[in-house]
């Protein structure tokens, strides 16, 4: 247990250090994820070693997020004032993302399959 948390928090710590670099817009936790992925990929850390704690943490992400969600009560006024731009921008953007991602992947995927068949 201590080993697993040590590895995960160690990566997070290194990530947070990287995020301190001035002008950095990437969160420390993302750097931490990338560092751990790199270590797994190089075989420095074995997947089986960290699996129980990783599974516990990722399975319960929704719960950890409740307090920042409750913080919403501090911003009811702001949301009320800008409800229309927020809703319209959000809904239109979701449709665009779904269609662009779906069509592009469908196109690239069918092209690469085709390519492999003719090799």
């Amino acid at each position, binding site marked *: 247990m201590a080993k697993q948390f040590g590895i*995960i928090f160690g*990566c*997070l710590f290194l*990530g947070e250090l990287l995020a301190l670099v001035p002008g*950095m*817009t*990437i*969160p*420390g*936790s*993302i750097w*931490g*994820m990338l560092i*751990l*992925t790199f270590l*797994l*990929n190089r075989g420095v850390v074995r*997947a089986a070693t960290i699996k129980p704690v*990783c*599974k516990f*943490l*990722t399975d*319960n*992400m*929704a*719960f*950890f*997020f*409740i*307090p*920042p*969600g*409750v*913080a*919403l*009560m501090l*911003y009811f006024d*702001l*949301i009320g004032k*800008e409800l*229309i*731009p*927020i809703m*319209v*921008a*959000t809904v*239109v*953007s*979701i449709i*665009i*993302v*779904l269609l662009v*991602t*779906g*069509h*592009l*992947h*469908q196109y690239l*995927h069918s092209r*690469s399959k085709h390519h492999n068949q003719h090799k």
Partner: protein
Amino acid sequence: MTFIEIARNPLSTITLTFVVFWLTTALQRRTRLAILNPLVLTIAFLITFLKLTGISFEQYYEGGRMIEFWLKPAIVALALPLYNELKHIKSQFMSLFLTELAGCAVGVISVVLIASWLGASPEVIRSLAPKSVSTPIAIEITRQLGGIPALTSAIVVLVGMIGAMAGVKTMEWGRIKSPVSKSLSMGTAAHVMGTNRMSEYGDRYGAYATLGLILNGILTAFLAGPIVNLIL
């Protein structure tokens, strides 16, 4: 001690958070309705409870911060599913990466442009930029961008609900036929909630959606800052 003094003790607010989430999760398991999202219900219940009892958010947050603390290590732990998926899809990596790059860019650009045309304030626009990414990642990005993390979390949950409820229909209407492409898009556009929806079709679909979710999270972390600064 009065009721309020006991109720605002960190031990009480943490206990309440556990119990409400437990009950709402059980409720959804019973009813199987996507709209009864345990996360949304728990947040709504807790806000109502705090408003009614007059306990301030700051008082709730004395306990709440201990729960929120675990978000960051949870994001780091996503390295494991990412690593597991990368092993399987090495040959398709380029097409997946290009797709995600495009999905991420159009997502951030469209939401920022539309919101600024409709007159949203810079703070709100910064909070909207990472809207398609899973909440823990999105609020970290918003913090780094100078937006309002709580607003981001509300939008992200909203995006997830819209995606889970209408995403598959939207793609059928848009003539996206490949199930793998649909899964990837749902993870990209509607994060964990889109991923849950695709998992109903089978593990393979859930895995593609997870990949969309994680890759878009990483790319948005890299691209949202430069894009927002360029447009605003």
